[in-house]
């Protein structure tokens, strides 16, 4: 009996199997279809990615600025077309080489200098290839995968900008000279008249001529200010620094103003620092000019019987210059603009129609070029202007 049952089971098995097989086949077919679809989708996605990659590469390749890439081991891995043109070299010739290996080529030697000079990212450093070809170099660190850092170097052609800058400086120089010539003639004539060289003058005549003289002096100062401002914008403003005694320079300027201060009837006090200051590297002329501009303001915008206090203090590794007056101050809503070009507070304009509005702008630029800071504080009716200058590091 069991045999028969076995046989029956055996006979029934194929039927089960073929159903299974059919099911399995169907599943396989579905899986195959799904895989094929996935492959097709992947293929489409891959094509799109490939296209996007080519578009991006094309942009970088043809970009109007030169682009160079250094890998984490400082070897050159990419030079776009513009960079090849700038350097007059094919990317194949420098691929895989370090800049140090290419120093025989003048441009790379110069580029190497710039890269060595600055640790960290470079922002717009000038690279002069020759008189008629100047580049601006910037670098950014970029990831080269897996925690490796490379450098992206951007080269921007600024030849035209430099040319325009040169033309502007020349123009201003010539204009300043041309303006000074008639201004000198007027100054000299008026002075000679005032000194009686051309005969006696009545009191009234003297007064008029005096006022004219002052007006003319204003124009001369304005020409100076404009010249200074142009040089600031040129960026080459600090011409020469020397080791100087800062206190001595302040005293020099204060001495110079002794008579003017006396005439105005204003009192002035000066406090030296408690300790001896080391010599500092300063552009003497420019520092004197900043002190002068601050002093000018204190004197101009103060009135008789008022007092101006000047002091120099040493604080940590800085020297702080302070000048306080109890003059007209600065209106609250105009405080932010006090250091900007040509700006004069409303109250200042009302008190004195003189003033070019350039004094503080110039002073700020000079102090910041020396790596110092300039600021002011107003308390009640006392206005204080400060500037700090870094002291040289102790050897």
């Amino acid at each position, binding site marked *: 009996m069991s045999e028969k049952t076995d046989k029956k089971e055996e006979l029934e098995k194929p039927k089960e199997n073929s159903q299974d097989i059919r099911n399995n086949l169907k599943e396989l077919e579905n899986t195959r279809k799904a895989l094929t679809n996935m492959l097709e989708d992947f293929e489409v996605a891959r094509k799109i990615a490939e296209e996007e990659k080519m578009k991006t590469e094309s942009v970088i390749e043809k970009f109007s600025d030169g682009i160079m890439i250094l890998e984490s081991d400082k070897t050159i891995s990419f030079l776009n077309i513009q960079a090849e043109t700038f350097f007059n070299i094919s990317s194949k010739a420098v691929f895989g080489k370090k800049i140090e290996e290419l120093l025989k080529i003048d441009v790379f030697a110069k580029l190497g200098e710039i890269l060595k000079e600055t640790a960290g990212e470079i922002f717009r450093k000038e690279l002069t290839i020759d008189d008629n070809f100047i580049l601006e170099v910037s670098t950014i660190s970029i990831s080269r995968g897996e925690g490796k850092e490379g450098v992206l170097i951007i080269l921007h052609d600024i030849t035209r900008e430099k040319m325009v800058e040169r033309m502007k400086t020349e123009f201003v*120089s010539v204009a*300043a*000279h041309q303006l*000074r*010539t008639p*201004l*000198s*003639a007027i*100054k*000299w*004539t008026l*002075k*000679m008249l005032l*000194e009686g*060289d051309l005969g006696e003058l009545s009191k009234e005549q003297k007064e008029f001529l005096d006022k004219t003289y002052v007006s003319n002096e204003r124009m*001369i100062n304005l*020409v100076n200010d404009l*010249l200074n401002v142009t*040089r600031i914008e040129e960026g080459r403003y600090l*011409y*020469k620094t020397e080791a100087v005694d800062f206190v001595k320079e302040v005293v020099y300027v204060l001495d110079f103003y002794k008579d003017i201060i006396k005439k105005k009837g204003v009192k002035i006090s000066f406090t030296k620092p408690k300790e001896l200051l080391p010599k500092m590297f300063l552009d003497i*002329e420019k520092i004197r000019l900043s002190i002068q501009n601050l002093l000018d303001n204190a004197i101009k915008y103060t009135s008789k019987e008022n007092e101006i206090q000047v002091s120099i203090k040493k604080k940590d590794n800085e020297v702080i210059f302070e000048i306080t007056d109890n003059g007209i101050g600065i209106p609250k809503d105009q405080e932010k603009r006090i250091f900007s070009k040509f700006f004069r507070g409303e109250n200042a304009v009302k008190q004195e129609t003189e003033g070019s509005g350039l004094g503080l702008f110039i002073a700020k630029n000079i102090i910041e070029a020396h790596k110092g800071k300039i600021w002011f504080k107003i308390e009640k009716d006392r206005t204080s202007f400060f500037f700090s200058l870094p002291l040289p590091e102790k050897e």
Partner: protein
Amino acid sequence: MGKKILLIEDDRFLRELMSRKLVEGDFDVTEAVDGESGVEKSKNGGFDMILLDLILPGIDGFDVLKKIKENEKSASIPVIILSNLGQREEIDRGLELGAIDFLIKAHFTPGEILQKISKII
């Protein structure tokens, strides 16, 4: 006993004014209207001081200064540059070439210039 001064200045009015003031100050003034004649007039020496403008027709003031200093006979004459240029580079260049002082005309009155001259000679 007037000291002799050579004034090299191309602007007529300024030249007249400066001359007048110098004469008032008892100086003996010789005028030159451009660089060439300035060099010419000084080539045999004979002056106690030279006042030199920089912007001149023909050869420029710096070249005139060079020539004066290169000529044995005029090299020892003190030269004051009187100019309306005044950038640091120009001042330094003038002093390097041998000028004894550099005065910006617009910043000094004739009287003040005279004082400076009297201090030197």
